């Protein structure tokens, strides 16, 4: 069957779709920010350049804030703007607006800030190795079933894994347009964001009682997000609103690429220390102790939530009787890290999947056999005591092994590498990802959705979840229309606007289809049975007086899904998506260069609503993961800061391997989470393929030629 075409594609293919920078309103000022350019210290003086008429500029600083100078987050510790203390590079000091962009840019480039510097922590290892940098709540997850030790064959092994920052690198930089209506005392924000209701809270926080009403709308097009437009928009919208309020004119800020790259949130660097006790011959793991640390940056903001997801995914797809996991945040003087596709899981899974291959390598057994021996199966318990009810991870593994010809290639490559300088490698990795908010998150959110049946026969869907490229608005409309059975163009998702849209929660955590979509489908079914129609078009035509009619539904969690936030025991995720991956590489030892040749992915994401869109999510996620595995890196000790895509190397068309994707168990009634899981497993698969090719264990990302060169030197000694 052919997939339904995307609803937004036509506007995007003709260039007519309006992204934030395409919006202009009468009298609009160009806005920008001035931010801290040292890592830690104090601001001593701000020197504006001579030769400009300051009257023409609107300038705001922390002292102009009528409300609170705190960005609302799970932990409220980050100020919108700073006036004295500097905790990280990239803190906003001033917002500035002027009618002319050239003059504004010139003024900003000539403004000088004087600082007094203090020692700062910016290197991720320095941050994560030192327990003195720990801050915030420490999380524990313990689970003890009677382990089946074979006392004569005990082997204890410890390994530490590190991963680096990663920039979301959505192609459209972040931007906000703020319009203040003086009569209504209403602040309207239009912008690039994943979570309109978070932005609303933020603008209400910074503006306090100075404005009566805050309305947030997303721009028509959002040029990618991947988590990067989850929490930074709160800060940017706050500063833009403040400028518009002070100027009493509309203000638009669109970040330059370089600034977007340097000051917005990134993926958290991690340090994962694994100690396992296992059988010294077959590698059966009976006990594991994991110390999972994230570099949060200078403020905690939403990092505890990332940490939580991280520890809940830390044992990966393995069944281990005795588990002890400790999760902690560490503070550095880099910009606060935030959400990025996978949200703590890719770091955890990188460590666990790499550990498994290291064990296999040390014991000289097949990585596949080792996985099969320790795999989670029906009836097994996750560390949260949640019982696994399906063998789908095993099915993914079996299928990917078959599709890729893993077994034969594994031995073929071993032979090949004996006589060839250029090496071949094949690597396996498993992935799992819980759908929706963690633990009690969905209970607290209580998402609401609305469907309006219009007089003219159109069906309008109101949800707060945004279309940022992932195809959500097409897929959601399709889910509703699977009940209504109208021509596709009759059913549409309305652009989220907080004054009309119920709060169906943020566009994060693989929850849009899984939580909001399934809720919409439930509402559509209810509408159908309440109105009792066979043909909706007919029904509306014959009962014109009763339309438009509006219907709402609230998310009710399964009462059996109980989760204890203190002990971390219970049902953390109602459903998991599962995946298995095989990657084939070529390694050139003269250039220290890995080339990924092929990547096979087998996933169980439940029902697939739109195959074209679902495939696009997997391809995109895999390629992002390959970038993380091989090239993408932000902070390198002793190197200058990044200047853009020149030195932050994203995968380009020429770097793309052959990627094969298969979805299994698609006859499921439920569409599970899909957006994040393709980010979780490819990086360790590449790393494991490199281990197979060379016998060199590298427990860090990215696998750049520099790192491989250094490791090769070590392994020769």
């Amino acid at each position, binding site marked *: 069957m052919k*997939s339904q*075409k*995307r609803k*937004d*594609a*036509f*506007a*995007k*293919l*003709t*260039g*007519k*779709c*309006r*992204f934030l*920078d*395409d919006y202009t309103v009468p009298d609009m000022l160009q806005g920008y920010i001035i931010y801290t350019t040292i890592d830690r210290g104090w601001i001593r003086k701000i020197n504006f350049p001579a030769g400009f008429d300051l009257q023409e500029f609107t300038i705001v600083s922390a002292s102009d804030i009528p409300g609170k100078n705190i960005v609302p987050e799970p932990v409220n510790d980050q100020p919108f703007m700073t006036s004295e203390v500097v905790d990280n590079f990239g803190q906003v000091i001033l917002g500035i607006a002027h009618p002319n962009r050239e003059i504004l840019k010139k003024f900003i480039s000539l403004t000088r800030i004087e600082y007094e510097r203090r020692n700062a922590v910016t290197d991720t290892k320095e941050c994560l190795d030192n327990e003195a940098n720990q801050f915030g709540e420490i999380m524990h997850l313990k689970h003890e079933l009677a382990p089946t030790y074979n006392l004569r064959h005990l082997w204890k092994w410890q390994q530490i894994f590190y991963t680096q920052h990663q920039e*979301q*690198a*959505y*192609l*459209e*930089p972040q931007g906000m347009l703020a319009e203040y209506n003086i009569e209504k005392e209403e602040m309207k924000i239009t912008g690039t964001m994943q979570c309109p209701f978070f932005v609303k809270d933020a603008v209400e926080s910074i503006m306090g009682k100075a404005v009566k009403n805050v309305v947030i709308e997303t721009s028509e*097009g*959002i*040029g*990618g*997000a*991947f988590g990067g437009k989850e929490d930074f928009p709160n800060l940017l919208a706050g500063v833009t609103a403040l400028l518009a309020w002070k100027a009493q004119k509309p203000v638009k800020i669109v970040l*330059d*690429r370089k600034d977007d790259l340097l000051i917005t949130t990134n993926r958290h660097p991690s340090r994962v220390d694994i100690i396992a006790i296992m059988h010294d011959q077959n590698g059966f793991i009976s006990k594991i102790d994991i110390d999972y640390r994230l570099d949060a940056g200078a403020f905690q903001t939403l990092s505890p939530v990332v940490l939580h997801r991280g520890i809940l995914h830390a044992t990966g797809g393995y069944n281990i009787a005795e588990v002890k996991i400790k999760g902690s945040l560490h503070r550095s003087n880099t910009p606060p890290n935030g959400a990025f596709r996978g949200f703590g899981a890719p770091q955890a899974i990188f460590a666990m999947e790499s550990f498994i291959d290291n064990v296999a390598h040390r014991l000289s057994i097949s990585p596949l056999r080792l996985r099969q021996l320790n795999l989670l199966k029906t009836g097994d318990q996750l560390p949260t005591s949640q019982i696994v009810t399906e063998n789908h991870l095993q099915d993914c593994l079996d299928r990917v092994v078959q599709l890729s010809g893993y077994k034969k290639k594994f031995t073929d490559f071993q032979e090949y590498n004996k006589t060839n300088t250029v090496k071949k490698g094949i690597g396996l990795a498993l992935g799992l990802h819980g759908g929706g908010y963690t633990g009690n998150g969905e209970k607290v959110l209580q998402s609401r959705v609305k469907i309006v049946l219009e007089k003219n026969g159109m069906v309008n869907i109101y949800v707060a979840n945004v279309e*940022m*490229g*992932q*195809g959500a608005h097409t897929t959601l409309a399709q889910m509703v229309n699977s009940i209504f059975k109208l021509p596709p163009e009759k059913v549409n998702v309305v652009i989220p606007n907080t004054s009309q849209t119920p709060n169906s929660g943020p566009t994060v955590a693989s929850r849009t289809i899984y939580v909001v979509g399934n809720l919409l489908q439930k509402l559509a079914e209810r509408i159908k049975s309440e109105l009792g129609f066979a043909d909706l078009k007919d029904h509306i035509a014959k009962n014109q007086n009763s339309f438009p009619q509006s219907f709402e539904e609230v998310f009710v969690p399964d009462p059996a899904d109980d989760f204890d936030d203190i002990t971390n025991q219970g049902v953390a995720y109602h459903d998991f998506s599962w995946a298995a991956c095989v990657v084939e590489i070529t390694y050139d030892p003269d250039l220290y260069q890995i080339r990924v040749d092929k990547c096979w992915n087998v996933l169980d994401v439940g029902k697939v609503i739109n195959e*074209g*869109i679902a*495939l*696009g999510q997997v*391809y*995109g*996620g*895999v*390629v*992002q993961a390959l970038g993380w595995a091989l090239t993408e890196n932000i902070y390198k000790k002793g190197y200058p800061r990044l*200047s*853009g*895509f*020149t030195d932050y190397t*994203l*995968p*380009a*068309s*020429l770097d*793309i391997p052959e*990627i094969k994707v298969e979805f299994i168990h698609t006859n499921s009634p439920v569409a599970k989470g899909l957006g994040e899981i393709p980010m979780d497993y490819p990086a360790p698969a590449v790393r494991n393929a490199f281990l197979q090719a060379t016998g060199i264990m590298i427990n860090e990302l990215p696998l750049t030629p520099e790192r491989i060169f250094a490791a090769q030197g070590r392994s020769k000694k």
Partner: protein
Amino acid sequence: MIELKFTVNSEEVAITVAENLRLLDILRDELHLTGTKEGCAVGECGACTVILNGEAVCSCMVLACQVQDAVIETIENCDTDPVLQILQQAFLECGAVQCGFCTPGMLLSAKALLLRNPAPTEAEIKKALEGNLCRCTGYIQITEAVKQAARELAESK
């Protein structure tokens, strides 16, 4: 200031602008052709790609004085251009559009390729799109779409 005459999407344009203006600014701010996007401003992302005298270029790297008498094509030409339309249809069918921010630039790079090489191999397609970053799609469906468009163009001749 500089007086410029050039053609955009088959229309003659006469305009006086500051010399240091980039072609991207002329298109977006002066002519209100906002289909051309700015993703990096330094010639690294390709979102601002237009066709200038038959070649795909990053309009953020072209200065006003370089477009005197030039023939320029932007995504807005798709209303009448059959090659762009075939490409659009193929992008739609192959699922090559996600966020859409790279899309206009991709289409123009692809068109420039098909103009000089109507039957490109997969490697040639990847090479031609090398300067156009896409963070959403992983390029697979985009490459497919260009292949499909090339096939259709060949058939339509």
